[in-house]
């Protein structure tokens, strides 16, 4: 009895102190429907993702070449042309924001390419410093905030137009070249990781970018050995979730945040006044994912085909909502930064949310239980 008493208190205390944490797996088993998605997945990789990233890295190369010309010439015409190339590189990036899973995530390429807002204080420190402003320095010496699209944008643009070429300092030009080179490398890497990159092998080797099995191959092989997607519906669900995520970000982040805070600094791509184009392209990334191709001509089998088989009116409704959302964003007077409270803003948010919602509530249940 004495022993019992002696032990009782500690036991009570231990039970008071110990907090049990239980963990349970919450992943739902995704039921593989009998539907064969093979051709849809192939179409998606070959005609949506790969062409988008091919266009991006090709344009990034043009941008770099033009920026380097500008570094030597200092000519306004070169700078103006570089601005156009920035926009033509930016467009496929935004049209790819529905598929930021896989290589973009695993290699942290989304933050490296598209960190926002820009860290102006650190950029000033770098420009005022004395480091050699090479691509190696930008790549290895700095964090994600001082590279990518928005750093290039900040150096190229002012108030929605090309800057005054005469106002560039030497170090600004050097930094612009360096950061454009890193942008080219990152876009090349993202393309190669999906596509395989054989046509750019020498450049990839020079940059020590290892590709391994292209992610596109793995994605197409979903449900088979050698793919991290256990079933085809896992892969299709990944596509849908990507579409939902960017819809949510455009409606409830990119447009809603600056609208609610009325703070222009929160508007993405405002140096170039490219924000609304960015947002429209984001919806096009949903469209291209849904319709399986970046151009009318290339579109064949797609998630749309599958939905149409199950429910033709749903398919029509989705297509209409996507078109409406792109138009609703276009209806906001440009530039967005000067029209944060325009009456059309709410309509655009609603339209995009409708796209997001219908995919979430009507399409996903057809694929996953």
């Amino acid at each position, binding site marked *: 009895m004495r022993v019992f008493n*002696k032990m009782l208190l500690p036991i009570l205390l231990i039970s*008071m102190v110990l907090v049990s*944490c239980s963990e349970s797996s919450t992943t*739902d088993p995704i039921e593989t429907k009998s539907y064969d998605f093979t051709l849809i997945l192939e179409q998606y990789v070959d005609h949506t993702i790969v062409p988008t990233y091919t266009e991006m890295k090709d344009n990034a190369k043009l941008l770099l070449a033009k920026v380097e010309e500008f570094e030597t010439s200092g000519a306004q015409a070169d700078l103006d042309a570089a601005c156009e190339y920035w926009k033509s590189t930016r467009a496929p990036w935004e049209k790819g924001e529905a598929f930021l899973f896989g290589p973009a995530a695993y290699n*942290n390429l989304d933050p*490296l390419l598209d960190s926002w807002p820009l860290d102006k*204080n650190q950029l000033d420190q*770098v420009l005022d410093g004395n480091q050699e402003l090479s691509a190696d320095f930008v790549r290895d010496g700095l964090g*994600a905030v001082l590279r990518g699209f928005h750093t290039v944008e900040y150096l190229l643009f002012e108030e929605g137009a090309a800057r005054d070429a005469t106002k560039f300092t030497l170090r600004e030009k050097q930094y612009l070249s360096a950061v454009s080179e890193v942008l080219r490398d990152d876009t090349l890497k993202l393309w190669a990781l999906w596509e395989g990159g054989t046509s750019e092998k020498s450049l990839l080797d020079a940059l020590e970018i290892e590709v391994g099995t292209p992610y596109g191959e793995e994605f197409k092989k979903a449900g088979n050995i050698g793919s991290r997607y256990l079933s085809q519906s896992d892969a299709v669900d990944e596509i849908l979730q990507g579409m939902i995520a960017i819809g949510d970000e455009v409606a409830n982040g990119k447009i809603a945040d600056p609208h609610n805070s009325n703070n222009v600094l929160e508007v993405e791509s405002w140096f170039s006044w490219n924000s609304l184009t960015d947002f429209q392209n984001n919806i096009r990334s949903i469209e291209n994912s849904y319709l399986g191709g970046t151009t009318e001509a290339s579109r064949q089998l797609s998630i749309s085909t599958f939905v149409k088989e199950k429910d033709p009116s749903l398919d029509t409704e989705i297509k209409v909502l996507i078109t409406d959302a792109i138009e609703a964003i276009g209806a906001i007077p440009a530039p967005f930064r000067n029209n944060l409270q325009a009456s059309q803003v709410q309509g655009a948010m609603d339209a995009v949310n409708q796209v997001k919602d219908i995919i979430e509530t009507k399409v996903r249940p057809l694929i996953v239980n």
Partner: protein
Amino acid sequence: MRLTFTLLMLLCVFKMNAQSTSIIRSDVNPEYDSYRFGAYGELLFQQMDYGPNRYAHEDGAPKDNRSVVDLPRLVLEFNYKLRKDIEFVTEIEFEHGGTGAGLELEYEEMGEYEMEVEKAGEVVLEQFFIKKSFSRAFNVKIGHMLVPIGITNARHLPTQFFTTVRPEGEMSMLPLTWHETGISFLGDYRRWSYELQLINGLDANGFSSANWIVDGKQGIFETIKITDPAVVLRVENKRINNLNLGAGFYYGNSTANTAKPEKMKHITGAVSIFNLDFAYQNKRAVIRGNFVYGNISDSEEISKINRSISTNIQYSRTPVAQNAMTYAIEAGYNVFGENSEGEKLIPFVRYDYYNTMQHTAGSVFKDARYKREVFTVGANYFLMENLCLKVDYSSRKIDSGNLNTEHTFGLGLVFNHWFIKK
């Protein structure tokens, strides 16, 4: 407040078993016979005159006016002597009031199951070890234990520093408190104390610009890797009356403990940290000082690799500096002396310097904004020996004042007590 009230009641009900607040280490050979149960905790109110994001603006954090209340931690301690010479020690910490998560069936989302975070916070097992005592001079600990690097890791009780929050210099560069798993040899010999530990090392993927090695403390994954172990040595001396001198040293590689060590095979990421500290306390005056300097080998290569870690893991991926450094000194004076209840009032001043990018290697850019200085004035009012009201006002200077200076007013209520001891 109810929690405070309950704790106050507990303090009144139980006979005060004052824990030694002496500056001499009391945990090497603790004084109790069979078991003891105690707790320490902090309640915090802060008002800041600056916004939370100092990086999105060129001049630093914009002017703002915001206040927070927090329960930074409540730690329950239970020690039990399984035998006269074998001790079981455990400490469980509830940070920010604990945590909650639940599985929910969402009918609004087509009957999907969702894992929901219901309450932010953490429950952390800070210490859990078995200690075998061979003599006063030689003890062995095995288990999860505190790593005594820096004065606050060696003395982390809230009554052992003056400020309302834990010293920010150490907090920015070292895990605080820092606890790892391994084996330790410790003891007291004459006026010396020592502790020698062999523990699991850090994970190089977690190193960052703003917090140096802090997030290199493993824990993101369920398994803790000890492929790269670390050694820790701390020595204390109290030869001079009222003065405690301490020195600590940490050494361990960090790359083999990463999630994908094959990416870092060619480097070791050796982390070495050196610290010196002192605490002087007589009936009236308290002066404490601390210096910590750390070095990481291969920091440039680590920065380069960390940059491309999957976005799906919560690392910060920012470049890491080769060296980080902090030093601080605080002095307080007990104005009315001490009555029998332990009631006393100690106004204090404190100065902290810290820079998590003290020196960078190779092309790693040294961002000047990580150099900070904090001046603090305040007072500690001890209602009784182990219950203290704290008030302070601090001014944080960033990059030698090139960015907006940040001011914080803090109020804290802290306690530290063994409720039951036998």
